[in-house]
Protein backbone atom coordinates (compact mmCIF):
# COMPACT_ATOMS: atom_id res chain seq x y z
CA UNK A 1 0.00 0.00 0.00
CA UNK A 2 1.34 3.41 -0.90
CA UNK A 3 1.84 6.03 1.74
CA UNK A 4 -0.65 8.90 1.41
CA UNK A 5 2.03 11.46 0.47
CA UNK A 6 3.27 9.20 -2.33
CA UNK A 7 -0.15 8.93 -3.93
CA UNK A 8 -0.48 10.51 -7.30
CA UNK A 9 -3.96 11.03 -8.73
CA UNK A 10 -2.79 10.31 -12.26
CA UNK A 11 -1.33 7.01 -11.19
CA UNK A 12 -4.63 6.17 -9.52
CA UNK A 13 -6.79 6.96 -12.52
CA UNK A 14 -4.46 5.10 -14.88
CA UNK A 15 -4.84 2.07 -12.62
CA UNK A 16 -8.63 2.32 -12.58
CA UNK A 17 -8.75 2.72 -16.36
CA UNK A 18 -6.40 -0.22 -16.91
CA UNK A 19 -8.64 -2.49 -14.80
CA UNK A 20 -11.88 -1.25 -16.40
CA UNK A 21 -13.53 -3.48 -19.02
CA UNK A 22 -12.97 -2.26 -22.58
CA UNK A 23 -16.71 -1.87 -23.42
CA UNK A 24 -17.16 0.44 -20.40
CA UNK A 25 -14.33 2.69 -21.57
CA UNK A 26 -15.56 2.63 -25.15
CA UNK A 27 -19.07 3.61 -24.06
CA UNK A 28 -17.69 6.40 -21.90
CA UNK A 29 -15.67 7.77 -24.78
CA UNK A 30 -18.73 7.67 -27.03
CA UNK A 31 -20.83 9.52 -24.45
CA UNK A 32 -18.29 12.34 -24.30
CA UNK A 33 -19.09 13.16 -27.89
CA UNK A 34 -16.71 15.27 -29.91
CA UNK A 35 -13.15 14.66 -28.81
CA UNK A 36 -10.31 17.13 -29.23
CA UNK A 37 -7.88 16.21 -32.00
CA UNK A 38 -4.86 14.18 -31.01
CA UNK A 39 -1.76 12.67 -32.63
CA UNK A 40 -0.39 9.21 -32.04
CA UNK A 41 3.12 9.52 -30.62
CA UNK A 42 3.44 5.79 -30.28
CA UNK A 43 0.73 3.89 -32.13
CA UNK A 44 -0.95 1.16 -30.05
CA UNK A 45 1.26 -1.91 -29.79
CA UNK A 46 1.34 -5.12 -27.78
CA UNK A 47 4.42 -6.46 -26.07
CA UNK A 48 5.61 -8.52 -23.15
CA UNK A 49 6.63 -7.28 -19.74
CA UNK A 50 8.14 -9.28 -16.92
CA UNK A 51 5.74 -9.45 -14.00
CA UNK A 52 7.46 -9.62 -10.65
CA UNK A 53 6.07 -10.82 -7.38
CA UNK A 54 6.86 -11.53 -3.77
CA UNK A 55 5.62 -14.63 -2.01
CA UNK A 56 3.14 -13.65 0.67
CA UNK A 57 3.66 -9.99 -0.17
CA UNK A 58 7.12 -9.86 1.35
CA UNK A 59 10.50 -11.46 0.80
CA UNK A 60 12.66 -10.93 -2.25
CA UNK A 61 10.94 -10.15 -5.56
CA UNK A 62 11.21 -12.85 -8.19
CA UNK A 63 10.27 -12.99 -11.87
CA UNK A 64 6.82 -14.51 -12.02
CA UNK A 65 6.60 -14.66 -15.81
CA UNK A 66 5.94 -12.54 -18.85
CA UNK A 67 2.52 -11.03 -19.43
CA UNK A 68 1.12 -9.39 -22.54
CA UNK A 69 0.63 -5.64 -22.26
CA UNK A 70 -0.84 -3.21 -24.79
CA UNK A 71 0.34 0.38 -24.72
CA UNK A 72 -0.20 3.62 -26.59
CA UNK A 73 0.90 7.25 -26.29
CA UNK A 74 -0.88 10.24 -27.77
CA UNK A 75 -0.34 13.99 -27.81
CA UNK A 76 -3.14 16.52 -27.46
CA UNK A 77 -3.15 20.23 -28.14
CA UNK A 78 -0.83 22.10 -25.84
CA UNK A 79 1.66 19.24 -25.80
CA UNK A 80 -0.24 17.13 -23.29
CA UNK A 81 0.96 13.54 -23.22
CA UNK A 82 -1.62 10.82 -22.68
CA UNK A 83 -0.49 7.27 -22.08
CA UNK A 84 -2.43 4.03 -21.89
CA UNK A 85 -1.21 0.67 -20.59
CA UNK A 86 -3.44 -2.35 -20.08
CA UNK A 87 -2.93 -6.05 -19.52
CA UNK A 88 -3.70 -8.11 -22.60
CA UNK A 89 -3.50 -7.38 -26.29
CA UNK A 90 -6.49 -5.09 -26.71
CA UNK A 91 -4.86 -2.30 -28.73
CA UNK A 92 -8.01 -0.25 -28.94
CA UNK A 93 -8.36 -0.29 -25.16
CA UNK A 94 -4.83 1.07 -24.75
CA UNK A 95 -5.62 3.92 -27.13
CA UNK A 96 -8.91 4.75 -25.36
CA UNK A 97 -7.07 4.87 -22.02
CA UNK A 98 -4.44 7.17 -23.52
CA UNK A 99 -7.14 9.54 -24.79
CA UNK A 100 -8.95 9.53 -21.43
CA UNK A 101 -5.63 10.16 -19.66
CA UNK A 102 -5.01 13.12 -21.95
CA UNK A 103 -8.46 14.52 -21.17
CA UNK A 104 -8.17 13.98 -17.43
CA UNK A 105 -5.04 16.15 -17.36
CA UNK A 106 -6.93 19.13 -18.75
CA UNK A 107 -8.91 21.19 -16.25
CA UNK A 108 -11.60 21.88 -18.87
CA UNK A 109 -12.26 18.14 -19.31
CA UNK A 110 -11.24 16.67 -15.99
CA UNK A 111 -14.56 17.16 -14.16
CA UNK A 112 -16.65 15.64 -16.90
CA UNK A 113 -14.47 12.60 -17.53
CA UNK A 114 -14.04 12.04 -13.80
CA UNK A 115 -17.78 12.05 -13.13
CA UNK A 116 -18.74 10.01 -16.20
CA UNK A 117 -16.02 7.37 -16.17
CA UNK A 118 -13.66 7.50 -13.27
CA UNK A 119 -16.01 7.75 -10.31
CA UNK A 120 -18.54 5.06 -11.37
CA UNK A 121 -15.75 2.73 -12.40
CA UNK A 122 -13.79 3.29 -9.18
CA UNK A 123 -16.97 2.53 -7.20
CA UNK A 124 -17.64 -0.61 -9.22
CA UNK A 125 -14.10 -1.88 -8.77
CA UNK A 126 -14.13 -1.17 -5.05
CA UNK A 127 -17.46 -2.97 -4.70
CA UNK A 128 -16.34 -6.03 -6.63
CA UNK A 129 -13.15 -6.19 -4.57
CA UNK A 130 -15.18 -5.97 -1.34
CA UNK A 131 -17.58 -8.66 -2.51
CA UNK A 132 -14.76 -10.95 -3.47
CA UNK A 133 -13.03 -10.35 -0.16
CA UNK A 134 -16.28 -11.17 1.65
CA UNK A 135 -16.71 -14.42 -0.32
CA UNK A 136 -13.17 -15.42 0.41
CA UNK A 137 -13.52 -14.48 4.07
CA UNK A 138 -16.63 -16.73 4.36
CA UNK A 139 -14.57 -19.77 3.48
CA UNK A 140 -11.89 -19.07 6.06
CA UNK A 141 -11.03 -22.01 8.24
CA UNK A 142 -9.51 -21.50 11.65
CA UNK A 143 -7.31 -24.25 12.91
CA UNK A 144 -6.70 -24.72 16.56
CA UNK A 145 -5.21 -27.42 18.67
CA UNK A 146 -6.98 -28.90 21.66
CA UNK A 147 -4.89 -28.99 24.69
CA UNK A 148 -4.51 -32.57 25.70
CA UNK A 149 -4.08 -32.78 29.40
CA UNK A 150 -3.80 -35.48 31.93
Amino acid sequence: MLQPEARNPRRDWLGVLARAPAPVLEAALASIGTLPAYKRLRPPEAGLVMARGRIGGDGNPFNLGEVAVARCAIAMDGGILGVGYALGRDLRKAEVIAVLDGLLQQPSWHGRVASEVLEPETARQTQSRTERAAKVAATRVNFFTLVRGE
Partner: protein
Amino acid sequence: MSALQARAPAPGFQAPVADSQIAFRALLGALSSPGRMEAISASHEAPAPIGPALGAACLTLLDYDTPVWLDPVLGPEVIAWIAFHTGAPVAFAPERSAFAVILSPGSMPPIDSFALGTDEAPETGTTLLVQVPDLREGRGLHWSGPGIAGRRAVGIEGMTPGFWARRHGMGDLAPRGIDVFFFAGNRVVGLPRTTRVEV
Protein backbone atom coordinates in the same frame (compact mmCIF):
# COMPACT_ATOMS: atom_id res chain seq x y z
CA MET B 1 -3.69 20.28 -12.25
CA SER B 2 -0.71 21.65 -14.13
CA ALA B 3 1.70 19.66 -11.99
CA LEU B 4 0.06 16.52 -13.35
CA GLN B 5 0.41 17.40 -16.99
CA ALA B 6 2.98 15.43 -18.91
CA ARG B 7 4.80 17.08 -21.82
CA ALA B 8 4.53 15.24 -25.10
CA PRO B 9 7.52 14.76 -27.42
CA ALA B 10 7.05 14.70 -31.20
CA PRO B 11 5.57 11.56 -32.79
CA GLY B 12 7.77 8.58 -33.71
CA PHE B 13 7.21 6.01 -36.45
CA GLN B 14 3.54 5.75 -37.36
CA ALA B 15 3.92 2.12 -38.49
CA PRO B 16 6.81 1.01 -36.27
CA VAL B 17 7.35 -2.43 -37.77
CA ALA B 18 7.20 -1.50 -41.47
CA ASP B 19 8.96 1.85 -41.03
CA SER B 20 11.88 0.42 -39.08
CA GLN B 21 12.24 -2.41 -41.62
CA ILE B 22 12.29 0.10 -44.49
CA ALA B 23 14.91 2.20 -42.71
CA PHE B 24 17.00 -0.82 -41.72
CA ARG B 25 17.03 -2.11 -45.30
CA ALA B 26 18.24 1.27 -46.55
CA LEU B 27 20.97 1.44 -43.89
CA LEU B 28 22.07 -2.09 -44.72
CA GLY B 29 22.21 -1.21 -48.41
CA ALA B 30 24.18 1.94 -47.68
CA LEU B 31 26.78 0.11 -45.62
CA SER B 32 27.16 -2.79 -48.05
CA SER B 33 27.65 -0.50 -51.01
CA PRO B 34 29.79 2.30 -49.57
CA GLY B 35 29.26 5.69 -51.14
CA ARG B 36 26.04 4.75 -52.93
CA MET B 37 23.15 6.92 -51.93
CA GLU B 38 20.04 5.34 -50.44
CA ALA B 39 16.77 7.08 -49.67
CA ILE B 40 14.81 6.47 -46.48
CA SER B 41 11.11 7.14 -46.67
CA ALA B 42 9.61 6.53 -43.25
CA SER B 43 6.99 8.52 -41.42
CA HIS B 44 7.92 10.33 -38.22
CA GLU B 45 8.16 13.91 -37.02
CA ALA B 46 11.63 14.26 -35.56
CA PRO B 47 12.19 17.70 -34.02
CA ALA B 48 14.62 20.06 -35.79
CA PRO B 49 17.49 19.88 -36.52
CA ILE B 50 17.12 16.09 -36.93
CA GLY B 51 16.31 15.37 -40.58
CA PRO B 52 14.04 12.60 -41.89
CA ALA B 53 16.79 10.07 -42.61
CA LEU B 54 18.75 10.64 -39.40
CA GLY B 55 15.52 10.52 -37.39
CA ALA B 56 14.52 7.22 -38.99
CA ALA B 57 17.98 5.80 -38.31
CA CYS B 58 17.75 6.82 -34.63
CA LEU B 59 14.33 5.18 -34.22
CA THR B 60 15.55 2.04 -36.01
CA LEU B 61 18.97 1.49 -34.48
CA LEU B 62 18.77 2.83 -30.92
CA ASP B 63 17.27 0.95 -28.02
CA TYR B 64 17.76 0.55 -24.28
CA ASP B 65 20.84 -1.60 -24.94
CA THR B 66 22.77 1.00 -26.93
CA PRO B 67 24.35 3.93 -25.09
CA VAL B 68 24.21 6.93 -27.39
CA TRP B 69 26.55 9.92 -27.45
CA LEU B 70 24.64 13.08 -28.35
CA ASP B 71 26.09 16.14 -30.00
CA PRO B 72 26.11 19.02 -27.46
CA VAL B 73 24.24 21.18 -29.99
CA LEU B 74 21.13 19.02 -29.50
CA GLY B 75 18.45 20.67 -27.39
CA PRO B 76 16.16 19.17 -24.74
CA GLU B 77 13.39 18.60 -27.28
CA VAL B 78 15.57 16.26 -29.35
CA ILE B 79 16.96 14.52 -26.29
CA ALA B 80 13.43 13.95 -24.96
CA TRP B 81 12.31 12.61 -28.35
CA ILE B 82 15.17 10.10 -28.52
CA ALA B 83 14.68 9.06 -24.90
CA PHE B 84 10.91 8.61 -25.27
CA HIS B 85 10.95 6.62 -28.49
CA THR B 86 14.12 4.56 -28.10
CA GLY B 87 14.86 4.37 -24.37
CA ALA B 88 18.57 4.56 -25.21
CA PRO B 89 20.76 5.65 -22.29
CA VAL B 90 22.94 8.71 -22.88
CA ALA B 91 26.69 8.03 -23.01
CA PHE B 92 28.72 10.96 -21.75
CA ALA B 93 32.05 9.54 -22.89
CA PRO B 94 32.43 8.93 -26.65
CA GLU B 95 34.42 5.73 -26.03
CA ARG B 96 31.50 4.26 -24.05
CA SER B 97 28.93 4.75 -26.79
CA ALA B 98 27.39 2.27 -29.23
CA PHE B 99 26.07 5.07 -31.43
CA ALA B 100 26.85 8.76 -31.74
CA VAL B 101 24.44 11.35 -33.16
CA ILE B 102 26.46 14.20 -34.67
CA LEU B 103 25.04 17.35 -36.23
CA SER B 104 28.04 19.66 -36.11
CA PRO B 105 30.76 17.59 -37.80
CA GLY B 106 33.10 20.60 -37.71
CA SER B 107 33.37 20.39 -33.93
CA MET B 108 32.87 16.66 -33.33
CA PRO B 109 35.32 14.75 -31.13
CA PRO B 110 38.15 13.05 -33.09
CA ILE B 111 36.91 9.89 -34.79
CA ASP B 112 39.40 7.72 -32.90
CA SER B 113 38.06 8.91 -29.54
CA PHE B 114 34.97 6.75 -30.07
CA ALA B 115 34.90 3.04 -29.26
CA LEU B 116 36.92 0.99 -31.74
CA GLY B 117 35.65 -2.39 -30.60
CA THR B 118 37.96 -5.21 -29.63
CA ASP B 119 39.50 -8.06 -31.60
CA GLU B 120 37.10 -10.46 -29.86
CA ALA B 121 34.04 -8.21 -30.30
CA PRO B 122 34.67 -5.83 -33.20
CA GLU B 123 30.96 -5.06 -33.42
CA THR B 124 31.18 -3.07 -30.18
CA GLY B 125 32.79 -0.16 -32.03
CA THR B 126 30.77 3.05 -32.13
CA THR B 127 28.63 3.64 -35.21
CA LEU B 128 28.58 7.34 -36.05
CA LEU B 129 25.36 8.89 -37.35
CA VAL B 130 26.44 12.18 -38.89
CA GLN B 131 24.08 14.68 -40.45
CA VAL B 132 25.73 16.92 -43.05
CA PRO B 133 24.42 19.74 -45.26
CA ASP B 134 24.64 17.76 -48.50
CA LEU B 135 25.74 14.48 -50.12
CA ARG B 136 26.95 14.19 -53.71
CA GLU B 137 27.74 11.23 -55.91
CA GLY B 138 30.37 11.47 -58.61
CA ARG B 139 32.38 14.33 -57.14
CA GLY B 140 34.60 14.43 -54.09
CA LEU B 141 37.09 12.11 -52.45
CA HIS B 142 37.78 8.71 -53.96
CA TRP B 143 36.56 5.72 -52.00
CA SER B 144 37.62 2.12 -52.63
CA GLY B 145 37.44 -1.23 -50.91
CA PRO B 146 34.91 -4.04 -50.38
CA GLY B 147 31.54 -3.26 -51.95
CA ILE B 148 32.99 -0.82 -54.48
CA ALA B 149 33.95 -1.87 -58.00
CA GLY B 150 37.15 0.08 -58.60
CA ARG B 151 36.80 3.54 -57.14
CA ARG B 152 33.85 5.78 -56.40
CA ALA B 153 33.88 9.55 -55.96
CA VAL B 154 31.76 10.64 -53.03
CA GLY B 155 31.20 14.18 -51.81
CA ILE B 156 30.33 14.59 -48.14
CA GLU B 157 29.79 18.27 -47.55
CA GLY B 158 30.64 19.63 -44.13
CA MET B 159 33.30 17.07 -43.17
CA THR B 160 36.60 18.73 -42.38
CA PRO B 161 39.92 17.66 -43.95
CA GLY B 162 40.96 16.91 -40.39
CA PHE B 163 38.26 14.22 -40.14
CA TRP B 164 39.52 12.39 -43.23
CA ALA B 165 43.15 12.74 -42.18
CA ARG B 166 42.36 11.41 -38.73
CA ARG B 167 40.40 8.48 -40.14
CA HIS B 168 43.24 7.73 -42.55
CA GLY B 169 45.73 8.01 -39.70
CA MET B 170 43.95 5.29 -37.72
CA GLY B 171 45.48 2.84 -40.19
CA ASP B 172 44.35 -0.74 -40.60
CA LEU B 173 42.79 -1.83 -37.31
CA ALA B 174 40.87 -4.76 -38.81
CA PRO B 175 38.67 -6.23 -37.51
CA ARG B 176 38.28 -3.21 -35.21
CA GLY B 177 37.16 0.17 -36.49
CA ILE B 178 34.35 2.66 -36.77
CA ASP B 179 31.44 2.62 -39.21
CA VAL B 180 29.87 5.91 -40.25
CA PHE B 181 26.55 6.88 -41.80
CA PHE B 182 26.19 10.30 -43.39
CA PHE B 183 22.68 11.74 -43.67
CA ALA B 184 21.28 14.71 -45.57
CA GLY B 185 17.54 15.22 -45.87
CA ASN B 186 16.08 11.80 -46.61
CA ARG B 187 19.31 10.37 -48.07
CA VAL B 188 22.03 8.29 -46.49
CA VAL B 189 25.53 7.16 -47.46
CA GLY B 190 27.46 4.48 -45.58
CA LEU B 191 31.17 4.50 -44.84
CA PRO B 192 32.14 1.17 -43.27
CA ARG B 193 35.45 0.64 -41.52
CA THR B 194 36.77 -1.35 -44.49
CA THR B 195 36.53 1.51 -47.00
CA ARG B 196 39.74 3.35 -47.91
CA VAL B 197 39.37 7.05 -48.59
CA GLU B 198 42.12 8.81 -50.52
CA VAL B 199 43.07 12.00 -48.74
